[in-house]
């Protein structure tokens, strides 16, 4: 049997322990720990449904080994905000009707957060390039692009608070 190891992940600001073998991905570990908002899509790095922030950088959790995320800060879409106090991105997606089935949206909002963190005033081209690792099979992308631009506007108006 392969070696298992208890690792501590800091998920949305809270420390959580789990015991996993070396080949377990961060995606599998997160879902095992109950973070079902992180979705499993292609498991190839093409669809971005599993995207999370790792120390602030967007990564595909399906391509990240859980052990290698130990001790790092993991942020899922739930860590950005909730129904009572949504993140400007979450509010913009809801207000703009930027989701249909919604499966891809947790990963898209994570990628969008990374895009805006990198550049508070992204052009449509910046947004498109930043979302090149996220697939949505329902809506087409127009409302998604618009929601991200709206959220960026709002976040700048709020003085860069995130």
């Amino acid at each position, binding site marked *: 049997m*392969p*070696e298992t190891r208890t690792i501590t992940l800091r998920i949305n600001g809270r420390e959580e322990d789990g015991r996993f*073998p*070396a*080949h377990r*991905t961060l995606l*599998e570990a997160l879902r095992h720990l109950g973070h079902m908002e992180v979705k499993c899509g292609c*498991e*190839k*790095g*093409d669809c*971005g449904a599993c*995207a999370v922030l790792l120390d602030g*950088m*967007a*990564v*595909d959790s*399906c*391509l*990240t*080994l859980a*052990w*290698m995320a130990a001790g790092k800060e993991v942020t899922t879409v739930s860590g950005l905000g909730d129904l009572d106090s949504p993140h400007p991105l979450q509010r913009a997606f809801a207000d703009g009707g930027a989701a249909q089935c919604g499966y891809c949206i947790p990963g898209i909002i994570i*990628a969008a957060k*990374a*895009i805006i963190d990198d550049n508070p005033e992204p052009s449509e081209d910046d947004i*498109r*390039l*930043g*979302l*090149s*690792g*996220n697939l949505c099979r329902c809506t087409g992308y127009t409302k998604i692009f618009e929601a991200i631009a709206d959220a960026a506007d709002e976040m700048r108006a709020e003085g860069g608070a995130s």
Partner: protein
Amino acid sequence: MYAPFQLDIPTDLNGALAALANGGGETVLPIAGGTNLIVDIRAKRERPDRMVGLGEVDELLGMEFGAEHISLGGRTTVSDLLRSPEIAREAPSLIEAARLFGGLMVRNTGTVAGNIASGSPAADLVPPLLVLDAELTLASESGTRTLALDDYYLGYKQDARRPDELITRIAWPRLPENSANTFYKLARRKGDAITVTGVAVALSVADGTCTRARIALASVAPIVLRAKQAEAALEGRALTPALIAEAAEAAAETCTPIDDIRASAGYRRHTVEALTRRLVTQAWNRLA
């Protein structure tokens, strides 16, 4: 879900090289971003017994901009390239390849060294690095050697890296004054696409003469390769449309493309010629 493996996470380069050297008959693979490797393990194309995670080997971080050379540490990611104004100035070909590389999350973790070591004929960072005359530093417990990237590939997905070696640095000489380097990725869409035809060109011009020409082609042969006959047709000459057309034809003759789901061999050969002509013409017009 997929075959289990052991994982070492060394905290320095010596530890990583020791872990790679002490396989004892096991298949041991280094892993940085994992954006190829994890996919290959899931698909059972790779079956490691043990992996060596490089995420804490800080000696592999960082880019160096010396007076004569530029070099990238082995853990430099595609996103690191895009955040570097120096790379944008010195290697626009590399930036163009990095911009259209995979998706955001893949760019954030995928490394330049990993793209090289994947041995894929469609590795987008390789044509720009070939036209820059990049050289690799390969380190192992038994020593360090340097190897021209041009000598690295032995055949389809076969490379000169021994299993106990790591690509620790990727370096290239700064180009002389009045040089240009460019890359064009032809693919079926802009984002997250596998290249149909990739062409990189570097040109240096002095006194109205092309002093140095490099042309590299991706996705049109078992390996990424230089079109050396085309380069030779340009070097030492004042370029004319007829000469550039001749070089472009030579580039198309160098490649040995296949038909696949993305394009036919004939289309690939045609686009090698068209893109070589276009990129060389643009570079010449800018410099001469």
